[in-house]
């Protein structure tokens, strides 16, 4: 049972191959160049040894933007591509590579079901007051100004993880989680149970917390000033705010979130203080949105930084909320990768008529002997907080015709 997870991005196609229990990949890599038929062929070649030449049984694909249409993972079917094409203006860098993949899929992976898993689905029901910006509706038309969040897959799993841990401690009330996703573009979300009520993310990865190279929240007038004083156009400014800012801008050298907690990093202290403070403000805003906090849950590739950030954030939050003791706010870590979560959601999203596939997968899970017997090797299950109703019609076919 082979599940291939694709992560299409501009000029690169990431891939990861899983077998149940899905948690540990059996192959992973990236193919440079724009995703398309050539890239997919390269992926098929790369994983063919692991699949004994048979290819994957299921493809899951991470998609950064699902707009208002895709509120859950969906199987690709006739019409999917057209719906995605309608969203291109909201993610002009990321959706064209996905469309190229969808066009090439029939030629390379004919008959293999493919499921799209959207980063924005988790935030589909974010209240209007949280996702709106204060512009004239006529100005925002076509600007994709709505706040959607960008790490919904990790947030959803992290909040479900925190809620499960809380239930395991015998506490039944809905868990108020601050989900701190430490990816290259970090993001904080607040969720009651698994219903998001706040996110630091915006309508693009630029908004919110500064990332490895992204500026995070800035005064809108700064953008205007960069255009006015430097004579720069929007593309040049976007380049500076997306690629030359964030921790790179603060330290003057390429550094990751994990890197700034390394004492050897030059100017690391300032970047560390800026990042930690921005995370604190977002956590405070999230706590206000939820009316309190039960757990701070970390996820993402730099989640190990929770060793420094977890106790500090908790200490500051508890100081602000004197009626909660430190013991009332749990610090958790959800270690699953986004690829593993995509694989799990892809399996769960297969329609009922694919029951045979599901039972084969279940059987494979039972047969699989885990290589390491720690909690990390348990079979991953999809962390669905709740099923959202897709605006996009349910799949009636597994492949584009």
């Amino acid at each position, binding site marked *: 049972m082979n599940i291939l997870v694709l992560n299409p991005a501009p000029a690169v196609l990431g891939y990861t191959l899983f077998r149940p229990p899905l948690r540990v990949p059996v192959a992973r890599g990236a193919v440079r160049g724009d995703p398309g038929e050539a890239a997919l062929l390269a992926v098929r070649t790369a994983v063919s040894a692991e699949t004994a030449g048979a290819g994957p049984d299921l493809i899951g694909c991470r998609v950064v933007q699902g707009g208002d249409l895709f509120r859950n993972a969906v199987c690709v079917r006739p019409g999917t591509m057209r719906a995605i094409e309608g969203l291109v203006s909201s993610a002009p860098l990321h959706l064209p590579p996905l469309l190229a993949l969808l066009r090439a899929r029939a030629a390379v992976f004919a008959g293999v079901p493919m499921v799209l898993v959207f980063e924005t689905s988790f935030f589909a029901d974010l209240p*209007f*007051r*949280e996702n*709106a*910006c*204060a*512009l*004239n*509706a006529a*100005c925002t038309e*076509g*600007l994709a*100004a709505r706040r959607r969040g960008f790490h919904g897959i990790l947030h959803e799993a992290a909040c479900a993880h925190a809620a499960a841990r809380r239930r395991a401690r015998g506490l039944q009330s809905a868990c108020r989680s601050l989900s701190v996703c430490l990816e290259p573009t970090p993001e904080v979300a607040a969720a009651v149970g698994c219903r998001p009520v706040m996110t630091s993310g*915006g309508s*693009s990865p*630029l*908004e919110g917390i500064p990332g490895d190279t*992204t*500026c995070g*929240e*800035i*005064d*809108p*007038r*700064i*953008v*205007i*000033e*960069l*255009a006015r004083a430097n004579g720069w*156009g*929007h593309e040049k*400014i*976007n380049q*500076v*705010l997306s690629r*030359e*800012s964030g*921790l*790179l*801008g603060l330290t003057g050298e390429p550094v990751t979130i994990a890197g700034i907690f390394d004492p050897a990093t030059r100017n690391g202290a*300032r970047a560390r*203080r*800026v990042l930690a*403070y921005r995370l*604190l403000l*977002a956590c*405070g*805003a*999230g*706590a*206000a*949105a939820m*009316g*309190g*906090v039960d757990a701070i849950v970390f996820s993402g590739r730099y989640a190990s930084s929770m060793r420094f950030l977890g106790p500090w954030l908790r200490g*500051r*939050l508890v*100081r*602000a909320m004197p009626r909660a003791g430190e013991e009332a706010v749990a610090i958790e870590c959800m270690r699953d990768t986004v690829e593993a979560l995509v694989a799990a959601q892809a399996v769960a999203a297969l329609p009922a008529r694919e029951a045979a596939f599901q039972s084969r997968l279940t059987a494979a899970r039972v047969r699989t002997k885990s290589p390491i017997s720690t909690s990390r090797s348990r079979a991953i299950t999809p962390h669905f907080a709740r099923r959202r109703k897709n605006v996009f019609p349910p799949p009636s076919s597994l492949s584009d015709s």
Partner: protein
Amino acid sequence: MRILSLNCGSSSLKYSLLSMPSGEELAGGEARGVGPPIAVPASIVHRCGTGTVRRTVPLPDHASAFARVMDLLSADPRLHADAVGHRIVHGGARFTRPVRLDRRTMAELDSLGDLAPLHNPPTLALIAACAERFPALPQVAVFDTAFHATIPEFARTYALPAALRDRLAIRKYGFHGISHGFVTGEAAEFLGRPRTALNAVSCHLGSGGGSLCAVKGGKSIDTTMGYSPLPGLVMSTRCGDLDPAVTLRLLAREREDSAAVENILHGHSGVLGMSGFSSDIRDIFARAKGNEGRCSRIEVTAQLYLWRIRRYLGAYLTAAAPVAALIFTDSVGEGVPAVREAACAGLEAFGLSLDPSRNEAPGPLPADVAADDSAVRVLVIHTNEERAIAKAVYGCLCANPNAHPSDHRMEGDRP
């Protein structure tokens, strides 16, 4: 000493003549409709003693408004000013306390024009007019940004390349500092504790602009406005916080015309842009009452306005913890109980709860409208920027009559 405080707005000039150090107001008023003629004729509302008079006079610019105000004051020899204080919106990193104005400081203020192209020029023109008419009268500048000079580096630094930050002096400056500083002092006095021991969150909510300020030990540690008065809360016509990508998309759509984008974000967004009805949030609340749950533009405007305040309250209650007081001030903060109620709702976890009846009718200000068991006191305090300016001017002139700002250079000043 009689000090004339001048508060220059884009189309108004507020003034107050105060006897210092007592703070007693001898006369005051406001010139309205300053600028090109509009439908409502320009006028001056002048109060003196127990009487108020209104005069309709053409006021083509701030210099003429100032001349008419001085005509009114000079009619009574008891109303001659000994010094003038000016509110200046932007002092950059350079001016972090009140300064006596002379040719040198004026030149330095002129050099800040790039930082505040919309706000400083009318005030500087007014100062020049004042110096020309009364060359012997001491003039002192009091800065809206000065109270925020204590914001620590990690909170005032944008995550942009250092070269850009340095070249364009990009950092968080903050505004409404005269008001935030004034109500912080009043709150400390009301609570009977030293200002230096007060942690608070100050909410300056005006019908035009608004900002929150986190105060620790009596000093500003963060505020919602930033490099300019544009970000933060939803304001009458300003958008507040906005994803930089949205500004970029607007820039692309407006064919790189940065002035057009600035016009949209400054003049056609916020409460007016969202509601399409009024730029005054009080009109929106009045219209929304009884129409809850209809998801109309009016209701979503009200919701977004309140939610933005709530978000920042949570952030600043955490940043300045443990907080002793939450302060509401200015026209909306003082006069709209529903805003206080909605902003504070559900914040019991922060030790904050309102007493509904006290909040509805706070009585004479300052007033505490928190519930008895609330750990955070919720204070409604009338802001008086003119009095704060007069106090700053008096302090400046008494401490060092010949003080020059070069004595007060701070770290991070531009060369």
